[in-house]
């Protein structure tokens, strides 16, 4: 029984990261109809920047976190305002290709500047554990879950309760109508990009201490895609739920299924859900209207 609880909690910790990454993906997708493949690489790049600030420049942890998030936000804002805007109105596929291209450019840049070695940096919670009942939890996992929770709640509050958030929602539903009602759609899109950029940086900084600062960190984005799909494409609560569920499924697969399944299970879920159950957990029906 303790194993089950332990696995569930470990799964939730990993799942919280998936959920947070998924959240960023869904946010950009809902607001701009772009499936943002840069997300994973921005996350990866942020972990490198965080490492540079903490280990090389010896900045305090919190300052480094703030700085990294700010850099990622500015980068994303500029990216949307200067690059992504050029392809507005082109088929959806152009957005996919463009973000993949930018993602690769970014990955190449990081790889050229930092080299292929993995690194690590200390956090206030490194190597600390908390005993809860019979279950041992790394403090880092608790921080991850707490951050995910906080970001989600803050985002919900922002989208539901603030004028800006409602404007974003309006623009995501009908850009032209929103524009005609006096909403500055372009600026809003950039704002959404900046927000997701900040979330990506946060994810990178949280993930790196458990998984090492490494180029391959971007791969978490594909796991997050599985989470997005599982939750029902375009649904923010769905993405959170899908992420948590996927984390737990992976943990259980690692223990109860033969070797090698743990890493593959996310992709099986992705394919399985899309083919058999495209609506996912909380999604609306999809498909273009005639």
């Amino acid at each position, binding site marked *: 029984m303790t194993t089950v609880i332990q696995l569930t909690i470990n799964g939730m910790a990993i799942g919280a990261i998936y959920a947070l990454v998924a959240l960023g993906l869904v946010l950009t997708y809902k607001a701009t*109809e772009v499936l943002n493949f840069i997300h994973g690489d921005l996350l990866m790049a942020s972990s490198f920047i965080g490492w540079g600030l903490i280990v090389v420049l010896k900045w305090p942890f919190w300052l480094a976190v703030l700085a990294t998030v700010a850099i990622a936000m500015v980068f994303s804002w500029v990216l949307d305002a200067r690059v992504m805007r050029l392809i507005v109105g082109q088929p959806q596929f152009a957005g996919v290709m*463009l973000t*993949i291209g930018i993602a690769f450019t970014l990955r190449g840049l990081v790889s050229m500047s930092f*080299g292929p070695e993995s690194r690590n940096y200390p956090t206030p919670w490194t190597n600390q554990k908390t005993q809860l009942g019979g279950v041992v939890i790394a403090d880092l996992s608790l921080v991850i879950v707490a951050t995910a929770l906080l970001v989600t709640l803050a985002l919900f509050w922002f989208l539901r309760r603030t004028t800006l958030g409602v404007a974003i929602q309006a623009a995501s539903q009908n850009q032209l109508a929103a524009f005609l009602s006096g909403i500055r759609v372009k600026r809003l899109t950039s704002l959404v990009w900046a927000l997701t950029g900040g979330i990506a940086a946060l994810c990178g900084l949280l993930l790196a201490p458990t998984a090492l600062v490494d180029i391959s960190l971007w791969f978490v984005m594909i796991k997050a*895609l599985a989470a997005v799909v599982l939750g029902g*494409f375009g649904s923010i609560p769905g993405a959170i739920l899908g992420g948590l569920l996927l984390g737990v499924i992976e943990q259980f697969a690692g223990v109860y299924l033969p070797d090698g399944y743990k890493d593959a299970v996310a992709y*099986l879920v992705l394919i399985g859900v899309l083919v058999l159950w495209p609506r996912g957990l909380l999604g*609306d029906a999809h498909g273009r*209207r005639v």
Partner: protein
Amino acid sequence: MRFDYDTSYRDGQALLRYGSGRAAYAVLALLLLAAPWALGKYYVGEMTYLFIMCIGSLGLMVLKGYTGQVSLGHSAFLALGAYAHAWMLGKGLPFALSIPMAMGFTALIGLVIGLPAIRVSGLYLAMVTLAFAILTEHVIGHWDAVTGGFNGMSVANPVVFGFDLSGLRPFYYLCLGLLTLVLLGLVNLMRSQTGRAFRGVRDSEAAAYGLGIWVSGYKVLAFVISAGVSGLAGALLAHHVRFLTPEGFGLFLALELVLMVTIGGLGSLRGAIFGAVLIGMLPVFISRIKPMLPEQVSKQFGLEIFVFGLILVLFVLFEPKGINGRWIKLKTFFQTFPLYRKDLFKRGKTYMKSERYK
């Protein structure tokens, strides 16, 4: 300036209507046939690799360029073709039988992947194929008994009716010959009913249904053809690399293929060739310019990824029609000289057709 003045329907059907075009292709054919005798060993090998990539690029072009179905995981079909072929050769099957069987096998997998593709489209399909590619790489890496896992698997020499074609020049001609066959076959297919139906499915499903095009059927057919051709490319690639490892068929290869068709120019076989040649040559080109770069940059791994990404970005932003689009513009410029206007190919203002999933 030249007008097409057709005097019979046959004129409109002809692939090369004018003497100039025929002469140009004849020269190209002669050059390609003579190349292995004029070039150094290294370049003969590189050209063979280009031919194989051309086949792979053509395979993806059928799917993506003609029916508009996005696949971010075509590396999987190359991998399946390569491993199936190598495995059958290892079991003692002759080359001439193993190649079509490997193609058939990948086509069958294409059918299996294509069937669900009827239900999902657009981004969903991109994600399914992406996951399929990662999964395939994963399975190959872990199925030691058949694939040799991460230790790899050696590939027997290609022996056709008693002749060993593993030599540099024989293998060059083998690949050139197969590429020509594939290209001609696809040219024929794309200019007849099947190709038209593919384009119809791509541009408007509603209209395609209304005109009697069985949309799902053609979508799956495109998957099958695409997978089969990619399987052939994989099988040839197996001989080229001589030793198969799962890493050789990773997402980077999938991206290379997507890059080829995208920057080549979607919806054109010529574009697939252009793209494959350019992207296939890029690593060679990069390794050539590396010595000229400062030490810090050149010794770092990642330059290739950076250049690939940058090229993709530039093409999407500035020439979405790809190299083929640029080629057509150039041709029109000279054919209509001096009447060419800069906005001749500018599309009329169209309202954004949202593809979002409501």
